[in-house]
């Protein structure tokens, strides 16, 4: 029909006015047909149940038609809950967490006629993603978050205040069960911690014995740590090459570099990376310089860390080398790796946490920096400000945090619930006692809204100094001045 009209136009049989009105009619007809078709299709789609259920419905209808005809209500569409997580199936310890979560989510979906949409993001990109998506108008519901971005979340208003849910739905004792930890005070009410993440130094007791060190007396300060690391760095086969390094250390392209390695040192030497009063970076002050000098010495002066690991990420530099038995002590060893060493038979009864936990080949000591100079944080749950299903998101979070579920999450860390520590006898267990002490001594990251930039700057600064062997003080000052030029005063 359309081509005939245009033929007519070409042959001047039809006036332009008529052509326009006919085209408009065609357009309107198409739109109306589309709307009718769409509405019909929508209802057809609703009433079309999955094949297995169709049989049941058919039987029901046959019966009802012969007795009293009734109208069958179509099944409601499942409510969508978008869950943003960082549980990467390619990482063994996170794959275990993913497997743990799947049955919980399945049960949740059945109970609420919901569909959980899994959204994966890298662990150090999930918080920025929530913030940028807020600005872009892209909604999420439940999300895992890290407290490092708390200042930015607060500034951008990217997470909902959870206090109205908690206060309305949780009993006082349940709140207290969570509120005992320092991380709760750090993250609530925008987030609720699902555990306490702390890091220790893991060490191989058998290697200690081989080096003539007492495995029951691990190093207590940084000087002792260096002495131990020197004794543990060995060429075991006599080919002139080091086979076992005393210490695993990270100078790599992720937040681990600042959080687990630089910050504990700068705190130990009496400084901080950022000053909350002046809102300026202070990482290049004397304590920071001492921290970087300490790192430098590990590679070039004491030669107790494998220089080949410079530039590698956290997992490669620490976990892989420790599991491959190439290092005797692993600084920054996270509780999320306990399952891996348990699977190797190096510890037992640690995951799920138990009062029967026992060190077999590997034991732990607190990072030998001064008290309150150890890094502790957590992963926590938050609800995105654009959530379309905040109530359901909170329900899903409660499922993950439920007492019967939470201990199975190997990535959650030390128990978030105080009652677990008591009921499981962890506080009296010699292995868990060390972890508990570390959690109690822990400290969080600087409360700047530009934490991501600070972490990247410190990483780039350290790696440049270490790999190019640049003067420490001057290089650090250059980086600090530049950071302050952009972000001082927030």
């Amino acid at each position: 029909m359309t081509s005939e009209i245009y033929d007519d136009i070409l042959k001047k049989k039809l006036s332009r006015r008529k052509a326009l009105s006919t085209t408009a009619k065609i357009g309107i007809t198409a739109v109306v047909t589309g709307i009718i078709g769409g509405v019909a299709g929508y209802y057809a789609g609703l009433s079309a149940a999955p094949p297995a259920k169709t049989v049941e419905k058919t039987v029901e209808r046959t019966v009802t038609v012969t007795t009293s005809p009734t109208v069958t209500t179509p099944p409601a569409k499942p409510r969508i809950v978008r869950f943003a997580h960082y549980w990467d199936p390619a990482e063994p310890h996170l794959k275990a967490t993913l497997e743990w979560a799947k049955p919980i989510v399945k049960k949740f979906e059945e109970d609420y006629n919901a569909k959980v949409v899994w959204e994966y993001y890298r662990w150090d990109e999930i918080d920025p993603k929530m913030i940028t998506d807020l600005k872009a108008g892209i909604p999420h519901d439940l999300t895992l978050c890290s407290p490092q971005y708390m200042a930015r979340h607060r500034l951008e208003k990217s997470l909902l205040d959870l206090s109205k849910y908690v206060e309305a739905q949780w009993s006082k004792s349940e709140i207290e069960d969570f509120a005992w930890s320092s991380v709760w005070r750090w993250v609530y009410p925008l987030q609720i911690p699902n555990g306490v993440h702390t890091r220790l130094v893991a060490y191989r007791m058998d290697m200690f014995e081989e080096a003539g060190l007492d495995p029951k007396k691990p190093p207590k300060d940084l000087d002792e740590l260096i002495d131990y690391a020197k004794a543990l760095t060995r060429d075991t086969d006599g080919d002139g090459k080091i086979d076992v390094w005393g210490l695993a250390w990270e100078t790599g392209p992720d937040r681990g570099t600042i959080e687990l390695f630089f910050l504990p040192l700068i705190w130990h030497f009496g400084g901080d990376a950022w000053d909350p009063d002046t809102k300026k970076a202070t990482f290049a002050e004397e304590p920071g310089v001492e921290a970087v000098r300490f790192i430098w010495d590990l590679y070039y002066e004491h030669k107790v860390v494998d220089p080949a690991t410079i530039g590698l990420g956290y997992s490669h530099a620490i976990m892989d080398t420790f599991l491959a038995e190439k290092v005797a002590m692993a600084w920054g060893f996270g509780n999320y790796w306990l399952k891996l060493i348990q699977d190797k038979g190096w510890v037992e009864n640690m995951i799920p946490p138990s009062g029967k936990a026992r060190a077999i080949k590997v034991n732990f000591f607190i990072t030998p920096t001064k008290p309150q100079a150890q890094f502790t944080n957590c992963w926590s749950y938050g609800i995105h400000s654009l959530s379309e299903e905040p109530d359901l998101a909170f329900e899903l979070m409660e499922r993950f945090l439920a007492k019967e579920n939470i201990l199975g999450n190997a990535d959650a860390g030390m128990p978030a619930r105080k009652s677990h520590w008591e009921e499981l006898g962890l506080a009296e267990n010699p292995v868990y006692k060390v972890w508990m002490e570390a959690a109690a001594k822990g400290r969080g990251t600087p409360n700047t809204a530009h934490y991501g930039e600070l972490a990247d700057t410190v990483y780039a600064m350290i790696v440049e100094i270490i790999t190019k062997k640049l003067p420490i003080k001057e290089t650090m000052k250059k980086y600090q001045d530049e950071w302050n030029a952009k972000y001082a005063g927030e």
Partner: protein
Amino acid sequence: MYKSEKLLPYFLFFPGIALILFFTIVPVTYGFYLSLHSGGKFVGLHNYFVLLFADSRFRVNAMNTLLYLSVVILTIPPSYLIAHFLWRQFRGSNFILRAILFAPFSMASIATATMFRLMVNPLFGLIPNLLEMFNITLNFYQDASLAMLLAVIHSVWRSIPFMTMYLLVGLEQIPRDVIDASRLDGASGLKFIRYITLPLTLPFLMLSVLMIFVWTINDFEAIYGLFRGGPGYGTEVLAIRLSKETFMYANFGLGAAIGFMIAAMSIAAMLFWIKIQRRTE
């Protein structure tokens, strides 16, 4: 002329113009608007000034981008030679060879970048282990020059197949009688390339240079997949910086300003290309 007759062209052009407005002009305008803001406040050209005069990291990014653009120079000559070889030696029967040649381009760049990264891992990578047999130690994770070299090699390796295919199409457009006539006149080897194929495929060559320039300057995933811009800022090109500022630090203004600078470089290259093309015509 009826009023409706006057309106008809506008009516017919409207969908196309609306699409262009919606998908090109609106985002570009909004991007420029964003680049004039910081933290939700209007700051004029402050973001541009910060980048150009107060941010040494940006200068490193720009220098890295220029180094990375060496991909353009390193891709075209081998692509042209391979295309020439395929055209001369396997004319009409090179289907399998073409398929094999095209394989690197058909894989996702993030996957090939990860593969390259694992190959140079100092602890378990294939290349460091092979080099160790000859007592050579190269650490791509620590040496920014090596890391950039690997990024360039990876990008050239990925780009050659497409460019070869594209230039091969150009070569196949050369009329048979021109080739026969040149043969009768004694053109062979380099002379044949210099006087026959090169002038006749020049438009294809020039367009391929422009294409690879724009691809490379905007490339993010390949180079990010290798070392995430590291070691330090060693391979952090402008596209990575843009992505970090915008999506990791949520500094939309600074990110948009970097985006405009990249766009300006691309437009400059395009204008240069148009000028050269007019001259050759």
